[in-house]
């Protein structure tokens, strides 16, 4: 294992310490339990946004803490969901009286830990909602499984909802907006290589020189299918088709009902993306892929979208949601209207996204 680290057990804390001081103009980091939060939190009467998940996806989520995006982020161990006490303490720290939205990627661990945290925070009188992001079209079956994973749409949900919170949306509105983003966005990813967590010291899976994994998540886990290595054009074609050909995806999501004061299962159906739509198009590095290669993928993606009658309203190419040093790429398309675009364009000041 070749990594810029010291003792394996210290990795997370040392990195967080460095992160905190490198960005002390924007945020602070609390330890025991661990969470990063806006320096100026709580913002009175603004809905607070909290996300979190395993570490190793940098800049997600810590890198999106700051004005215009997240109020707090809770990092777990590498590729392991954070624990409820982190989100609970973060919620208490950043709630400005207008309630808290948890943006949760749809991994069993994340979902359960955030649910427990929400229950804890509600006991303290904080109004908390959990919105689940499950945008990974590579996972087909859903009714009796954990469903689709949360991927690139998470970043867009954080950005767009962050701007809406700044603009004065209340908790109900932000919750609805966040669900809308999730329903309008789809992602698919692939890996050329595995990655190595410091704790394990060996690759998360073994992949031959002439093989690739298609339909991966973001935790160094194997994908839905292993196949022969293909050209960038063929890979891009697979990812874009995966997204555009996705049929009306319907599943039940576990959401908090303020009316019923309990968790309920809500049936949700995604919007298809097709002819005449405008999208935000993200080409995301899995971490170790050079930025230049992303542009090759972008070029082919644009050609395919144009052929499908889809207009790229905004483009994102870079490191947004990664898996350590894994080489590979994911594509995310978010179908937008004026509301989403306006919030996407709003200013943001975080370590990972400045505009």
């Amino acid at each position, binding site marked *: 294992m070749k990594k810029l680290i010291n003792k394996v057990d210290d990795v997370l804390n040392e990195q967080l310490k460095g992160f905190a001081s490198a960005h002390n103009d924007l945020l602070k980091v609390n330890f025991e339990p661990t969470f990063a939060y806006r320096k100026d939190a709580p913002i009175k009467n603004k809905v607070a946004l909290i996300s979190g998940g*395993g570490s190793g996806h940098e800049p997600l989520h810590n890198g999106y803490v700051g004005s215009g995006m997240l109020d707090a982020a809770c990092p777990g*161990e590498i590729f392991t969901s954070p624990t*409820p006490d982190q989100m609970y303490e973060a919620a208490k720290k950043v709630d400005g009286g207008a309630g808290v939205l948890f943006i949760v990627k749809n991994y*069993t661990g994340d979902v359960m830990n955030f649910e427990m945290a929400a229950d804890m925070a509600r006991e303290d009188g904080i109004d908390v909602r959990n919105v689940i992001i499950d945008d990974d079209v590579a996972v087909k079956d859903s009714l009796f499984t954990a469903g689709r994973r949360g991927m690139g749409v998470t970043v867009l949900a954080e950005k767009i909802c962050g701007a809406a919170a700044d603009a004065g949306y209340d908790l109900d509105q932000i919750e609805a907006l966040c669900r809308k983003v999730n329903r309008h966005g789809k992602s698919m990813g692939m890996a050329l290589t595995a990655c190595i967590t410091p704790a394990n010291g060996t690759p998360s899976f073994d992949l031959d020189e002439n093989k690739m994994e298609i339909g991966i998540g973001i935790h160094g886990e194997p994908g839905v299918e292993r196949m022969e290595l293909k050209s960038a054009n063929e890979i891009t074609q697979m990812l874009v088709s995966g997204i555009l050909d996705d049929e009306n995806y319907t599943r039940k999501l576990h959401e908090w009902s303020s009316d019923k004061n309990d968790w309920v299962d809500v049936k949700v159906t995604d919007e298809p993306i097709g002819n005449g739509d405008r999208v935000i198009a993200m080409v995301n590095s899995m971490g170790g892929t050079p930025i230049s290669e992303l542009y090759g993928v972008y070029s082919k993606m644009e050609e395919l979208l144009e052929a499908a009658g889809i207009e790229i309203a905004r483009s994102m190419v870079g490191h947004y949601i990664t898996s350590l040093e894994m080489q590979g790429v994911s594509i995310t398309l978010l179908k937008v209207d004026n509301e989403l675009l306006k919030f996407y364009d709003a200013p943001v000041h975080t370590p990972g996204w400045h505009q």
Partner: protein
Amino acid sequence: MITKQEIINWLERAGEIYEKQRGYLTELDKAIGDADHGNNMNRGFQKVTENLADHSDSDIKNILSMVAKTLISSVGGAAGPLYGTLFLKGAGSIDASDEISDSDLLHFWEEGIKGVQARGRAEAGDKTMIDSLLPALETLKQSIGNNEEITKALEKAAQSAKKGMEETIPLIAKKGRASYLGERSKEHQDPGATSSYYLVSALAEAVSNNSSE
């Protein structure tokens, strides 16, 4: 009757096993998950073992609640809330005392596993920890119903857990991270079912060792 010392021995024994099997559990999770289950369980139970030192004056219910909170706040992932809930609901179902009856132990498992299912919504056959926990519970219930010796009863429960664990191998995962793999999740033993088997067998060991002293 299970004594407080036996409970402590159980938890310490579990800690030893998870430390020893950290690599193996992680390896199992590497095949169909994200290669962290051994690390997660080990982190949690080392914390539990550490915390036990401060609990010499606590009763069993207290100790088990401490385990719940420790697991919830240190394991993370799917395993953290699930094992945390197991202990939380289990501890909630028994009386505060320095020893518990066999039927209290049964309640612990019954309510604990109910909690796990309420939280994780996995059914038997979904290729999860439930697949070793449910058979173990079933066996324990029968044995205790038949007034079998507790040592023997736990021994048999551990055997059932083991069988359940092994029977996860051909299954297609329906819950948790392995479910993303669909058909590719076949032919692999579920890591959580494995760690659950360890938990039950650690109890069997702790109780039998103690009784034979």
